[in-house]
């Protein structure tokens, strides 16, 4: 067991390509043979599974809703451990791939109280995540995950920016809000996505102006669009693909590979 596992989270403004960056980081990790990897797709607005060429599955949110339903209907045996049941159902929907496992969180809470269910979920995910040398999370857009402290165990926060001003503002807010809610990331880095090489200096300067570490840039890569269209996994992108090369450089710089 790897109790020393690293938790890496990818966040940023909606539409900057978080999931693509997450998929490329995953590819770099897988290709480098970097131990066991748990990928958590926590962005309900995207579908990381699609980018990785996997069938969509049931989500943790669906299981939580069913658990609540069963309890309300009195179908749940009184002495049966809800945590264990929940944990087993989550393990059941885990995509177990050769080089990594993927868990899809799905769209958040339905109606009613999720205090108890979320409390169980936190402990279940903690337990699961300890079994991997790296946990890579694709967070939902925006900042809510911070205020819910979903990221409290994140070691490295990768904030994706593009050329838009709003993406920098979001990056800054993520850093500030993390401080406010006492989440202590060991490291925060920014990664530019879909930025033409001639704009790299501008992006780097802007990021550094707001006091964030710049870790590199994923260039516009026609292969990504065509793989996406054909429904092929980004993990199969050729080594020579510019985005793949860039992602390798970035994970090396962050110290992941």
């Amino acid at each position, binding site marked *: 067991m790897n109790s020393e596992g690293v938790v890496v989270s990818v966040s940023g403004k909606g539409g900057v390509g978080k999931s693509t960056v997450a998929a490329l980081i995953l590819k770099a990790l897988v290709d480098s043979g970097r131990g066991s990897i748990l990928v958590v797709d926590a962005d309900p607005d995207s579908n990381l599974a699609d980018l990785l060429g996997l069938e969509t599955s049931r989500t943790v949110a669906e299981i939580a809703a069913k658990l609540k339903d069963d309890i309300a209907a009195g179908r749940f045996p009184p*002495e049966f*451990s809800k945590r264990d049941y929940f944990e087993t159902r989550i*393990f059941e929907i885990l995509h177990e791939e050769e080089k990594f496992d993927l868990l899809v969180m799905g769209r958040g809470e339905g109606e009613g109280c999720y*205090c108890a269910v979320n409390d169980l979920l936190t402990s279940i995910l903690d337990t699961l995540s300890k*079994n991997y040398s790296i946990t890579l999370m694709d967070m939902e857009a925006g900042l809510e995950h911070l205020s819910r402290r979903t990221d409290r165990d994140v070691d490295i926060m990768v904030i994706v920016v593009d050329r838009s001003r709003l993406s920098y503002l979001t990056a800054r807010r993520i850093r500030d809000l993390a401080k406010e809610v006492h989440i202590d990331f060991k490291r925060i880095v920014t990664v530019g996505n879909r930025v033409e090489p001639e704009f790299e200096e501008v992006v780097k300067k802007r990021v550094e102006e707001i006091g964030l570490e710049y870790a590199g840039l994923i260039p516009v890569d026609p292969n990504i669009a065509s793989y996406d269209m054909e429904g092929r996994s980004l993990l199969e992108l050729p080594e020579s693909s510019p985005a793949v090369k860039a992602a390798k450089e970035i994970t090396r710089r962050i110290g992941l590979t």
Partner: protein
Amino acid sequence: MSESMPVEISPVYEGERIRKQDMYVELGGPNVEHKCELVLAKPMEEVEDGKISIVGPDLNELKEGSSNPYAVVVEVAGKMVEKDLESVIERRIHDFSNYIEGYMHLNQRYDIWCRISKKAFNKGLNSFKWIGMALAKLYKAEMPFIEKIQITFYTDPEKVKEIYEQALKIYEARDARARGLRDEDVDTFYSCVLCQSFAPQHVCIITPQRVSLCGAINWFDARAAAKVDPKGPIIPVAKGECIDPIRGEYTGANEIVEKRSLGANKRFWLYSCFGYPHTSCGCFDTILFYIPEVDGFGCVDRGFKGPTVNGLPFSTMATQVGGGIQTEGFLGIGMEYYRSAKFMQADGGWNRVVWIASTLRARIEDAIPPHLKDKIATEKEAPDIESLKKFMIERGHPLAKKLLEMEAAAKAEEEKAPAEAAPAAAPGVTISGLPLPAAGGAGGIRITLKGAKIRINQLIIKKEG
């Protein structure tokens, strides 16, 4: 024994998950229909201490990468070993199995899912006898009242099926017994403050017959949680002396409520909506509300969007009920409480219920006593108070007689002083006569802040008018 054990046995392996890629074989789990684990209390002479049996292929005879039917039967004996302890002893199979390096164990009863890792198999964990020896040793060490223990592992599909079917009946009987557990039968309740981030003075008291408001934590869950995390939000409550068995007032519960509500509340009547009702956080599954016009209760769940019989939707009432304030006549309650024999015991129980939102009714139909099934209205029969009154009288609801008397008295009153008479509760209007929390006013308001961090640039408080 530990010298010959091929793998380590230690709590550090708790939470060990074995990835499909690293797994040698799978036992139980979603790919097989029959799997279970069972503890049986036996007479001393029927248990041969330390005996480990394997019925069907052993670990090294199973095909690598396969999923297999699996049953584990643990038979125990001892002067102190009673039938009632079976489920408590059985629960430890999970913990102890988790101590074994390379043996993943998830869940319980008929839903177990185990895996043996390739690594452990190659180290020599190639027979169930090792698992049996480890379990037997751990049981004897951690539960010394077990004097004799024998363990049988089944992988033969026919045998597993047989055990599985037998086990289901045993689980069912246990569930029936657990559902029958009364507050009188235990010395310990539990209190939960998981929701205090939303309602800092709210405390849930969880008893065998009163589930948490959110419905997610029953007495058994609370007992397990308190054991796992003694410093967590759920802690045991020594029941103390029972001050009032009908209203459900216990000294121990009162003490913990005062302590954990930061002094905001000092007494709880666990089985009543009046006097000192249980507070609500904001998380409750459903709301039970008093309808003064008919002196009965209405019940509504979160899923019901329209106005209830008193004209107020769930959301409006929720703001009055929540926040950890004792509000007579309004109570947030968990779904399972409707199935409890203590349900509103002090106020007349189910006989006091006159209206249930149809969405809620669909989920708790089984809880409604047979004699009331056709006497309790939903919004379909009774969208407002007037139609509710009619319905109750027509159907002969237990409160109908009293309702007729109330109506007659009101009519007499009206005739005596027609000038004063207000129109008898127009449909959709309501909460008259209810002790609602004063909005500001004479009593003032109390604000409790806990671990708060507030930044305000400007705050203006003005008296209106």
